[in-house]
């Protein structure tokens, strides 16, 4: 089966091509094309995953591009991480395809939506089976385009247009880092193959400085894609896209690609302490930074977006603390519960036609499925014991502590408190209390929307049990498989970390409960509405404004300065050239005086010159 893994990305590509060419004729049937083909991917992915449990890594490649003596290859690889990612991506994609049939029902560009979903799924699946950096980069860019197209799906909205553009350009800034890092690594090892790079790192063939430099450059690419500080601002704006897209791309899969990239290249990063520390610091900072913004946002999708940024920060912190398993584990559980949360949020939006949580409230009774499912997702992300997020977050905290980063550990713990708080704030404001908006026509979503959520709900509960301190670390042992570069399968941590994590999470829930359900603590206890702190958080620390005033202004300024040069200096040069030509012409025409004496004189002087030359050179001009 593994030798056929290359088919997995091709099914959605086929869906993209079919829908691009015949979507107009297929109309609503487009959904079935997309759903069936992603189902095929899912079935293949499950088969591949099971086969990979018992068999070794499969890798194959062929010559893609010849440059003189250099042969660049393409191919695919099924190792543990890839097989797991194939499963996660094709599962979430299949569920989102199914869900969208209800959510996007009636949209004028329904087939186009499914076509774009197919393109994205193709690129994402291609990304996770790439055996070399160049191919990874190729698909890395393609997922970016899929994301760009879907963010801008409502192309007639100015906000969607701006968000799509921003997403593309900001991630591209990161991509350039990856691009440079990849090329520098190539000239060190004469290969883009992961195996060759790891072999060179192992053999000490690359200098320490170069490892650090390339690792950090590649990490910049991950920062862009995974919405890490300071390139995070595109991700919340990306919520302009349809909600199923936010679930698939901007929660479960693409934004986790940065984490995946660091994990896939882990032996390289592990060889540089500086690179690991950079990742850990950026990750921990992003985790708390984004969580604090999430505390005050009022748009349901934006709260979830900031929580995504924050959770991705956790994963980076894990990887940076050498917790390979913890990072990948959290990637998986997060994919399930965050996709669930987004789909549930979509179901809410579908019902009440607003994204503002101030206008919701009291939906628990009206949305019989969505409410409990949202609660499950909220419990999982908050790290409440026995839910999946609890186990993976615990692993990360242990990794940060054992990795010797007590300060980062503390930051992560505070962020965990904030997460529990803002997620339950969201839950209470949406589902409890009085209805604050018009809810006459509210009804539960159709089955094709609720079934995917139910499946994700089940996974959000049970996915954590593949790697627990109580029932064994099956996932970790399998992922690491004795590879010393990836660390241990399971880190034994002190029990107090688990207790501390539980306490902060419950404390967060308690505060949210008191503030937003019981209302016995006023909402402005810590910082009042209109306070400086509140205003700063509401404006997301003014990072966007800062970029506008610096990077954007500088670029524009430089452009206008160059235009000044173009208009005055370069055009001046043109005028000069034209002037010379015209001048010569005028001089020439002035010579045409009509006076025979002048002509005679010119002819005589010419003859005299020729005679002199003849006399000096002996007749032949050498």
């Amino acid at each position: 089966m593994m030798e056929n893994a290359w088919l997995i990305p091709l099914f959605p590509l086929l869906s993209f091509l079919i829908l691009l060419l015949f979507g107009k004729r297929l109309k609503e049937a487009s959904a079935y094309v997309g759903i069936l083909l992603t189902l095929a991917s899912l079935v293949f992915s499950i088969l591949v995953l099971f086969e990979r449990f018992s068999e070794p890594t499969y890798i194959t490649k062929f010559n893609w591009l010849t440059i003189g003596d250099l042969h660049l290859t393409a191919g695919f690889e099924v190792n543990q991480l890839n097989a797991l990612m194939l499963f996660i991506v094709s599962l979430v994609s299949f569920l989102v395809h199914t869900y969208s049939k209800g959510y996007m029902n009636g949209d004028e560009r329904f087939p186009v939506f499914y076509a774009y979903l197919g393109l994205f799924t193709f690129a994402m699946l291609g990304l996770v089976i790439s055996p070399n950096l160049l191919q990874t980069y190729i698909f890395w860019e393609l997922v970016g385009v899929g994301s760009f197209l879907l963010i801008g799906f409502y192309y007639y909205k100015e906000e969607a247009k701006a968000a799509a553009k921003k997403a593309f350009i900001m991630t591209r800034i990161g991509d350039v880092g990856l691009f440079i890092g990849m090329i520098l690594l190539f000239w060190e090892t004469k290969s883009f193959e992961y195996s060759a790079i790891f072999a060179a790192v192992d053999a000490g063939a690359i200098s320490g400085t170069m490892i650090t430099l390339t690792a950090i450059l590649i990490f910049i690419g991950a920062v862009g894609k995974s919405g890490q500080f300071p390139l995070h601002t595109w991700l919340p704006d990306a919520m302009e896209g349809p909600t199923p897209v936010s679930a698939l791309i901007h929660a479960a899969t693409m934004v986790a690609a940065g984490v995946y990239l660091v994990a896939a290249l882990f032996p390289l990063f592990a060889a540089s302490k500086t690179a690991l520390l950079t990742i850990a610091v950026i990750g921990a900072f992003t985790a708390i930074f984004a969580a604090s913004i999430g505390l005050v946002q009022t748009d349901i999708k934006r709260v979830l977006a900031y929580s995504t940024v924050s959770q991705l920060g956790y994963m980076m912190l894990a990887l940076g603390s050498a917790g390979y398993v913890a990072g990948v584990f959290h990637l998986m559980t997060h994919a399930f519960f965050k996709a669930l949360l987004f789909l549930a949020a979509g179901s809410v939006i579908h019902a009440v036609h607003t994204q503002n949580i101030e206008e919701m409230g009291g939906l628990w009774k009206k949305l019989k499925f969505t409410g409990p499912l949202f609660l499950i997702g909220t419990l999982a992300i908050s790290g409440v014991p026995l839910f999946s997020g609890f186990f993976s977050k615990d692993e990360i905290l242990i990794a940060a502590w054992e990795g010797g980063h007590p300060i980062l550990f503390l930051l992560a713990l505070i962020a965990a408190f904030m997460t529990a708080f803002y997620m339950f704030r969201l839950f209470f404001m949406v589902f409890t209390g009085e209805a604050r908006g018009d809810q006459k026509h509210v009804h539960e979503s159709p089955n094709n929307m609720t079934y995917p959520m139910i499946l994700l709900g089940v996974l959000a509960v049970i996915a954590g049990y593949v790697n627990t301190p109580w029932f064994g670390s099956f996932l970790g042992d399998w992922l690491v498989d004795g590879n010393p570069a990836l660390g241990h399968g399971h880190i034994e941590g002190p029990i107090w970390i688990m207790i501390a994590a539980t306490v902060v999470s419950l404390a967060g829930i308690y505060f949210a409960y008191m503030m937003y359900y019981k209302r016995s603590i006023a909402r402005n206890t810590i910082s009042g509405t209109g306070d400086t702190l509140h205003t700063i958080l509401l404006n997301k620390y003014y990072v966007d404004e800062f970029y506008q005033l610096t990077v954007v202004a500088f670029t524009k300024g430089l452009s206008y300065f160059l235009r000044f040069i173009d208009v005055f200096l370069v055009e001046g040069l043109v005028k000069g050239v034209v002037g010379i030509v015209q001048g010569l012409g005028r001089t020439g025409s002035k010579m045409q005086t009509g006076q025979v004496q002048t002509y005679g004189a010119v002819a005589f002087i010419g003859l005299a010159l020729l005679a002199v030359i003849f006399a000096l050179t002996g007749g032949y001009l050498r």
Partner: protein
Amino acid sequence: MNLHAVLTILVFSPLLGIVILAFMPKQAEKLIKVVGLLATVPALLIAIAAYLHFQWGKDLADFAVSTSWIQFRGMGGVPEPFFSVNYELGLSGFQLVLVVLTAVVATLSALAAAKFVKKEWKGYFMLFLLLEIGMLGVFTAENLILFFIFFEITLIPTFFLIGKWGYFEKEKAAYSFLIYNGLGSAVLLIVIMILFGKTGTTNIEMLTKIIADPSAPLSGDLKLGLLISLLIAFGVKLPIFPLHSWMLKVHVQAPPSVVMIHSGILLKIGAYGLIRFGMGIFPEQFKTLATLIAILGVVNLLYGAFLAFIQTDFKMVLAYSSISHMGIVLIGLAAMNEAGVQGAIFQVISHGLISALLFFLVGVLYERTDTSLIENLGGIAKGMPIAAGFLLAGAMASLGLPGMSGFVSEFMAFLGLFKELPWIAAVGTIGIIMTAAYLLRAVLGMTYGKAHREFTGVLDLRGVELIPVGVLMLLIVLIGVFPSVLSSPLQTTLETIMLGLGG
């Protein structure tokens, strides 16, 4: 089979069209268009056949032709015949891909002209076919005199095509084109004459050998001077900053079908000349200038990109974008290794296809809406979804999206330069970001957002208009996904160049 006549037939096949057109009445619009279009087909078929000939493992040298042509009798005391110029055509892998590109774009441009040209079709197509002869000749000529003659043949029809069928300031643009290119030609002619005088031959292969010989009658300084002159002559064409202002006018004022040719093929003559003559004949001197050329490349790349970022007319965006993309050619060449040079050649082909595609779309938009100003066009994705889709896809190709030809070339050019001059290359990567910024700003500005005005009765791409965009897009994706279709003919050329560079 004797294939020596093939190239001559290829180059001069449009002549048949010119002759037929000469005898046709001016008013026979339909017939003129059909003849004009069909006259480009033989060259296309021969070019494709030659490509297949290569891919089936046969030798491109089969096509080479050489007969004696002009001879100067020696003057007193000189062994005779002193100077002889042969009629020599040939086809290396590099030339082959350029010939295919030329033939493809020429046919598609003829199709575009049949759509967009509104007057005096007879004159247009006759000049156009003459231009095609010039272009095909330039890329197959094996000696400098013949090259120069074909080079000049491209200038004259282009001048008239711009001056007569262009937009409002067409005359100004045409003269600007003529003066700059004329000066470039003059410099080129001087170089050719000095080489001819010093070595007695203009055959490119012979020249390369003679100049590589240390006992050649040329001092190092003279060679350097000649190379700098070539850099100026072809720099006008490419164009290299600050010699670019003429081409902005041409891009804006010339009719779209001519810009397809101009941006797609004519600018590429500059790159071809730099590679074949600059790097091919003066490899040693090219090495000394490598850093300078790399800097020029980065300047071109960034200068074009930053200026494209603030243009209001989409045609100007594309014009500056051409400058920017030609910077990538220089970057690749400056690397002087396999990756860089192959990247530069890929960029030549890739940009030819992409700019032909984008300018065709500009033509479509202008015909439907009478404008190419970005702000006037907002929101056309609603009325023209197919055109808007191709525009976006073209922009993606242009900004170097993997899976399309632009990425492969950009990637290889940077791969090459990072090996030799990493710091300059690192500065150049800013261009990768800026390219995305200016293209998305322009294309999203035109297609996305609210429609500023009702484009009532505006038709989307349809019928034969889908052929050029479809063919070009297919080729762009083909090269992006299977770059070996383009790289395999180039390997021998690369080997030759690398040999000249000393390994």
